[in-house]
């Protein structure tokens, strides 16, 4: 080997040295071999079991594969126009990213500098915390309230002069809780524009409750508000990685300065445009499937004596009388892949995606098999 090995101790910043890389799960063919099962039902990532909508599939089928040789629209021009029509905003109110994870990074990069902090909950989607920490900023984690929801008073109390962004997840992943519109408005009023508030609505399309607030409608009133949405969950384009954020044009202009252009590929943009065309029908079908799954699984879990929390999204959290990571291995051996929740700071809990009934029946059976005595 030519040259010396680089001195990593001095080259790598201290805050990176102490971070462990995220290791994603292995592909299905490898997992099937490892666990000795014929098929794996993925109930771990809250994907939509119905797949992409018919119009999204049509859009994908119509793609000229030769276009793979051409750069995509660098700022998702046509998609932003479609989004503007759908939500009654201007195209410049949107930034499209390679999944919502990328736009989280854009926001933190745009507003934080050394010594700043962000605030979120301790038991919520981990990426806000991760991005802040590997960027060298403090993530202040406020415990969820007794109702498994974000604690508004405690979040406000955690703000100091260096707080730049507050992240809310609505409905919360993994508890499914959300604030009513009145509560959200009170919170935004108390912030009074001093910090950026991000409302991550990755699962909003699953919610049927009448009091669930629509962040998009609040953008006109709160210029410090940014709303995140994704095509990965309801629209079932997780494999294409596409999500977006919306906000006041001036705010979006600031965030755009940190964006990586061309990060969203042409196929994802086309499929997302297709998704919007038959969104109403697709959302209706999916909600019916999730409702059926929730109505089946809840009583089954009651019979097993397992506490569960479903909320309004397409997942359910279940408390087990055993280690969740052991349950993961035992369920995997039966071809059922769930999300163990130790990493979400809910030890001995699992989160499962609500999907088609036959798979929910297998899950209920699988849980019965692994429960002690």
């Amino acid at each position, binding site marked *: 080997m030519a040259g010396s090995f680089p001195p990593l101790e001095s080259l790598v910043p201290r805050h990176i040295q102490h971070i462990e890389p995220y290791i994603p799960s292995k592909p299905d063919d*490898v997992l099937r071999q490892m666990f000795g099962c014929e098929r794996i039902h993925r109930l771990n990532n809250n994907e939509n079991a119905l797949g992409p909508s018919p119009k999204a599939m049509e859009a994908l089928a119509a793609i000229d594969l030769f276009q793979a040789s051409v750069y995509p629209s660098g700022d998702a021009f046509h998609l932003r126009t479609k989004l503007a029509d759908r939500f009654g905003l201007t195209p410049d109110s949107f930034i499209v990213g390679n999944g919502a994870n990328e736009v989280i990074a854009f926001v933190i990069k745009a507003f934080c500098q050394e010594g700043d902090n962000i605030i979120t909950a301790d038991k919520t989607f981990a990426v806000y*915390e991760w991005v802040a920490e590997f960027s060298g900023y403090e993530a202040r984690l406020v415990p969820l309230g007794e109702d498994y929801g974000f604690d508004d008073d405690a979040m406000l109390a955690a703000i100091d002069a260096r707080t730049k962004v507050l992240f809310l997840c609505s409905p919360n992943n993994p508890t499914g809780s959300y604030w009513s519109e009145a509560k959200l408005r009170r919170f935004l009023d108390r912030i009074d524009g001093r910090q950026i508030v991000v409302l991550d609505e990755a699962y909003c399309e699953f919610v049927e409750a009448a009091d669930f607030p629509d962040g998009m409608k609040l953008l006109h009133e709160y210029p410090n508000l940014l709303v995140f949405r994704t095509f990965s969950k309801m629209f079932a384009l997780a494999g294409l990685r596409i999500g977006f954020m919306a906000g006041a044009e001036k705010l979006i202009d600031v965030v755009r300065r940190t964006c990586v252009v061309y990060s969203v590929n042409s196929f994802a943009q086309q499929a997302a445009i297709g998704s919007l065309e038959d969104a109403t029908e697709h959302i209706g079908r999916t909600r019916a499937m999730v409702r059926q799954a929730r109505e089946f699984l809840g009583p089954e879990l009651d019979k097993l004596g397992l506490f569960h929390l479903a909320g309004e999204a397409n997942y359910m959290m279940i408390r087990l009388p055993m280690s969740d990571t052991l349950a993961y291995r035992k369920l995997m051996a039966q071809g059922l892949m769930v999300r163990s929740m*130790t990493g979400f700071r809910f030890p001995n809990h699992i989160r499962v995606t609500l999907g088609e009934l036959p798979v929910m029946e297998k899950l209920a059976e699988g849980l019965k098999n692994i429960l002690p005595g």
Partner: protein
Amino acid sequence: MPNQQRVELQMPFRPEYLPLATGCVEQAVQAYGMGRGEAMHLALAVEEVYSFLANRTTPGQRLRLSCRFAGYYAEVVCRFQRGGLPVEAFNITTTVSSDDEKSLEEMGLLLAARTVDQLRISAEAAEMGVHFIKEKLYPSVQDDLPDFAATGPFHLAEPEAELLKQFAVRVHSRFGAKTPPPFQCPGKLVDMVCCGEYDAVLLVDGKGNVGAGILWHCRNKLAEAYGPFVFCDQPRLATQGLEACLAKLARQGLLCLVVQQPPAEMPDGFFEPLEAAGSVLYRQLEEDNGSVAYIHPDIADFYRAETQRLFLPRQLHQALRQGEAGSPRSAFSARMNRPAGQVVLTALWVGEDAAAVLQQHVKALRQAGFNEIIFQLDTGEASQAELSPALLAGGFVPRYILPWGGRGDVLVWTQREEA
């Protein structure tokens, strides 16, 4: 790690630079607030390695020397181009014969190994590192604090110095001579937590009484915990403490948590026993999506049965030497717990003489009064698979698998005196 201070130096292997190396170590270690004695021991270790290498290296090769203070110990690392050092000279069983010139030359390395509290060898790309660790001296527990009747609510408290010292005293009052090593010196426990190598969850009442606590430290991908210990009549504190510990460990990239000799108050449902007696409890912190284990055919049946019992997804690769040239010599590390009569051996380097070196270790350790010898074999290292026949022949018995305990799973073997 807030309390860490580091000094680094690079120099060629030339005799006139030796005082620079030893002087640097001596001064740095004393600047860390440690005693002259400890500084001299570390300086001597460096002198021996430097002198040995200076006689063997080619012009242009350099030593990278670093000194680090971690609150309760100083670590000195000598890094140099691989292949220059006979690692077997660091074995605790190495003896020196006055008739053997090569043996006499290596005597310095033996001295180096024995002047420090811990020795570790690392390899990174083309470099090899010899790590010498010398700990600070601390007074042991003097007081006694009996368990108490709780009169008020408990809250999670930051592990501050006075609370940690109280925690150590309470554990010592419970276990006496069998107190786990981290609790034997309260001041040391404070430094261990302060430097970031250990962490703790403490539940404290309004009067400042520590009602329960759990302590842990992380090594590679594994966290090892002591507790939860409850010192009052509120058993629910054990669950509260454990949940708080798991919340702290979440999102740190660790793979597992182990509790050796779990206390009676350990709550049900959080751990899985790794062996029948339940003296080792285990919990994965992340989803296990499989790994490769390098296993000798002699141990494959045991390994397969255990991984099936534990639902561990493993691909077993039978690792057998097929005539290829390997390292001729071996080196083992020995971690001793003299009061318990226990020693833990691990392989630093596996060579063709492994069986003989193992035998020498067992003989020497038995003579030194150790009645329980544990061997930890890393199944993530293909070269270690070759050790299984030697362990079996030496009367060792495979006891359990510690999943992800090393580079891969660690297969734990024991040999008791009667074997």
